């Protein structure tokens, strides 16, 4: 919901409710259970499914310094259940700040880029068992038309897997299409 809008500034709030079903194939527990008990029992199922609910509220803003440069910020917080059964649910936040650059005004090429940094406690299955994630992102977008958008984003995600490796980095590439009506 948009709250404030001026020529160069926009501020909005949001509510987001999400439900997920997370299924894990736990090979380690399953194989050990078979060896220990000699059979597959309800105590060592290979599949484990749990729901994960998330209800968060957010504030979002954008401020345009000039036609070529803009700052976008995002802060969300609320109730979030972990993707790991062993972790309890609770309050979690997520925040991102990014600089959006439109190169059309500078070099005449209809390409926009953005660079940003973020911090996330709200769990995603991407992150495994970790509780906190920081990430850096870099996005390219075709801006030659206002009716659709083609973009590519690269993210470098830094997290930890409890009891395994305290410093895990992941590179994620994403391709997106957006159609505006």
């Amino acid at each position: 919901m948009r709250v404030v809008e001026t020529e160069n500034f926009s501020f909005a709030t949001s509510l987001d409710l999400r439900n997920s079903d997370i299924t894990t194939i736990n090979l380690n527990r399953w194989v050990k259970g078979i060896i220990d008990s000699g059979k597959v029992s309800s105590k060592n199922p290979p599949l484990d499914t749990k729901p994960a609910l998330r209800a968060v509220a957010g504030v979002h803003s954008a401020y345009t310094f000039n036609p070529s440069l803009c700052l976008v910020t995002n802060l969300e917080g609320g109730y979030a259940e972990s993707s790991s059964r062993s972790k309890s649910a609770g309050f979690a936040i997520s925040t991102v700040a990014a600089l959006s650059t439109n190169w059309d005004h500078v070099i005449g090429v209809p390409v926009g880029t953005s660079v940003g940094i973020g911090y996330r406690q709200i769990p995603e299955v991407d992150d495994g068992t970790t509780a906190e994630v920081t990430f850096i992102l870099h996005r390219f977008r075709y801006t030659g038309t206002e009716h659709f958008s083609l973009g590519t984003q690269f993210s470098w995600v830094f997290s930890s897997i409890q009891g395994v490796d305290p410093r895990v980095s992941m590179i994620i590439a994403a391709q997106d299409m957006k159609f505006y009506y």
Partner: protein
Amino acid sequence: MFFAEQTNRFANSPVIRQSGLQFGLTAEIPLGAVAQPALDASVSVHKGLRLGNHIFSLPLGILDPFVRTVTTFNIRVGTTTGIDFPIFKVGENIVVAPRGDLVLMSILARQEQKIKDSISFHAYLDVVGRLGTNVSSLLSQGVNTQIGYGIG
């Protein structure tokens, strides 16, 4: 400048309220040859995410302060850059593969619908899969899938 020409063309275009796919078709036809509906003044100035004459390149995965109707599809793939896994013992055998990786893939479809000038509604569906690439990472992290949906 190229940008100025683009901007003026869109600002004056009578097909500004049509979808991106429809625009792709009508753009091939001279505008004078088609029936031109009146331009609605209430059409969002954020079509294509514009504010202060800046066209945004917003990061994926975050909500933004703009209210408009937009359909989004995205696909992600990712990999870790090497994880040190513990040594596993399965029965009498020790599985030694101290380093391994996890790979990730996801797809998402999302629709945001503008209800009023300042309010929009969104719904989405995503599927995520994450699994190890060798014995140690499979034993440690298993195979994880997530099917999620949300509204807001």
